[in-house]
């Protein structure tokens, strides 16, 4: 096997694929919550992806990729057996939920993939936890059986095509209303979702942790592209994060920063699609 070879590529739902990549050095120290940065080819940009799973024995790292832009579409066109040009990691700090006894994991959209390694780890540590997964409709879920085998899993959709109709915040309110108690809510997903989950958590007097998916270049603290304001201070998602106290993040700033290249990206995508 060659370095950064794509060993498998699985369709999880429309426009979302899981890739298993041969990367012995990354697999060796990878932990839940960390990410990699990859380049597909010589002209490729550097793009971060959260590590969704890893195997130290097989020397592999899995990432889950939604096809939203030029690079992710280029990736989708690569075949099993082909090699990525670059694949560096594990970057960022691992998730640390050790100080909490009862935990609520909340995943939105592709974010649900990202909480899978945390769920596996919490199960292995015999922690008390529950899971909420939210998405637009039933087609956007994957790993459901795996999640259910790990902990009580609640499903919410915008259109009610599976699980409860509504938002993840409604489900949080419902669980709390039933008398459930959590020390922390760990949320990963689109920025607006994390913003509202964190706000609700603060109102409920619960600590929240969110994982910031900022734009990045190097991932080593060299460019400052990934900066976010946390508690009024500038933090680098790649070296100080990616996880931060949800109640302290400036989400609105993060939302505008994340759309910096939207126009340019759109033209790139149009060129690819022709």
């Amino acid at each position, binding site marked *: 096997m060659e370095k950064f070879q794509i060993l498998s590529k699985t369709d999880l739902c429309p426009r979302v694929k899981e890739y298993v990549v041969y990367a012995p*050095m*990354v697999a*060796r*120290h990878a932990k839940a919550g960390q990410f990699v940065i990859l*380049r597909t080819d010589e*002209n*490729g*940009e*550097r793009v971060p992806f959260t590590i969704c799973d890893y195997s130290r024995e097989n020397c592999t790292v899995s990432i889950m990729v939604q096809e939203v832009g*030029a*690079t992710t579409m*280029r990736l989708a066109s690569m075949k099993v057996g082909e090699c990525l*040009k*670059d*694949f*560096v*990691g*594990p*970057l960022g700090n691992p998730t640390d939920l050790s100080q909490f006894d009862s935990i609520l994991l909340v995943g939105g959209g592709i974010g649900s993939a990202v909480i899978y390694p945390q769920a596996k780890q919490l199960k292995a540590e015999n922690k008390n936890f529950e899971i909420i997964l939210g998405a637009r409709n039933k087609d956007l879920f994957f790993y459901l059986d795996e999640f259910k085998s790990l902990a009580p899993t609640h499903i919410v959709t915008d259109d009610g095509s599976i699980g409860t109709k509504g938002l993840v915040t409604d489900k949080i309110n419902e669980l709390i209303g039933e008398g459930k108690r959590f020390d922390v809510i760990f949320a990963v997903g689109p920025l607006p979702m994390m913003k509202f989950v964190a706000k609700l958590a603060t109102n409920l007097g619960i600590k929240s942790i969110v994982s910031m998916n900022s734009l990045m*270049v*190097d*991932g*080593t*603290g*060299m*460019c*400052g*592209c990934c*900066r*976010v*304001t946390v508690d009024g201070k*500038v933090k*680098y998602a790649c*070296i100080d994060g990616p996880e931060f106290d949800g109640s302290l993040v400036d989400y609105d*700033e993060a939302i*505008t*920063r994340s*759309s*910096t*290249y939207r126009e*340019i*990206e759109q033209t*790139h995508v149009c060129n690819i699609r022709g």
Partner: protein
Amino acid sequence: MDRVVMPTQNPAERIHNFKEVALGFTPSLALEEASRCLGCKNPPCMAGCPVGVKIPTFISQVKAGDMDGAYRTITIDNNLPAICGRVCPQEHQCENLCVRKVKLGGSVAIGALERYVADWALDNGVMPEKRDSNRFKVAVVGSGPAGLTCASDLAKAGVNVTIFEALHEVGGVLVYGIPEFRLPKELVKKEIAKLASLGVKIETNVVVGKTIFVHELLDEFDAVFIGTGAGLPMFLGVKGENLSGVYSANEYLTRVNLMKAYEESSSTPILKGKSVVVVGAGNVAMDASRTARRLGAEVTLVYRRSRAEMPAREEEILHAEEEGIKFNLLTNPVEILGEGGKVSGMRLVKMALGEPDASGRRRPVVVEGSEHEIKCDQVIVALGTSPNPIIKNSFKDLAFSPKGTILADEDGKTNVDRLYAGGDAITGAATLILAMGAGKKSASSILNQLQSAEK
């Protein structure tokens, strides 16, 4: 006899391309300039060179037409002369001490001659000699000038060297920071090919402290050298700094240089501002300004002191002026203004120079009531950098200064046995030649330690 001026690309033309600006000496210009050297018995210039290149010797060899000899003379002390000849601040170093400086037509163009010799060697494929003994194994972390120099000296002495680099390309600031029009990347590639010919193994995409840990390297290798630079950019700390359209110079230059965002084929995006403000006045600020100019912007440089205090190389300041960069001196930003999350302008104050501060430069003080606004659609902050905290956070045994730089002595020795460090990682952002000097010193002390342990 006046100093020979190096030909350059015409400014009106070069602001539309990324090709090298300074074109180098022709053989006849080189000969003419070399014959200006007086061959002083006690050459003052050498005292100004941080690595002690034997300047009059190599220049006399150029005069005699012995290019190979000239190249060997330089490379005894300097492994990367094609690069140093282009980017060293010669006017503050060797050329500052040249006896011709004031009254004899100006200092000898030592940097330009160094470049001439080095380019000749690269064009003629002159390769360094290697001794085969392969007794020791040394890991070098970071592939900037410090790491490259240390690796090259060790490899020449017959050591098995592996370089670990975080990025996908080798060269540190030489590839991600300094632009193509000042330091062609082809040239850096050729220098690196020389390393490979010495048998140096290069592992890119390895972040030491994340992918592999320093203690693991110490287990696996006889010694470790850390040359991780000072890459973490500083910001102004003013309101509006995280608006979309505000870049650190490092991000801006990395997108353009390392990721080639100026080429159609690159997938890396960059915002092309129409009216760009660059904050700072060092080499990095000049590089950012001139890059923005080439991407089509009107560029204004904002600096809180005066022209005399600008820390950039004189040549860069001149080239920037020729290219139409506006200098807004004795001015300081107090806020970056935005509209809909994007940069729309900057609020500034005028400054005046007061009493000298700790650095010996006169301290800028705010002029009361001088607040004013200018319009712009992009801001690039070039205020300096400090070391990234990855090694510090992942290896608690190593001693650091409060500023986050690694503590090491003259020979690059740290408080941890067999662990050495040098370059910007120990000095904070400095110069290429100092980083190379540090890499060289560490290589020789590593050899000493390994050889004496063997006895």
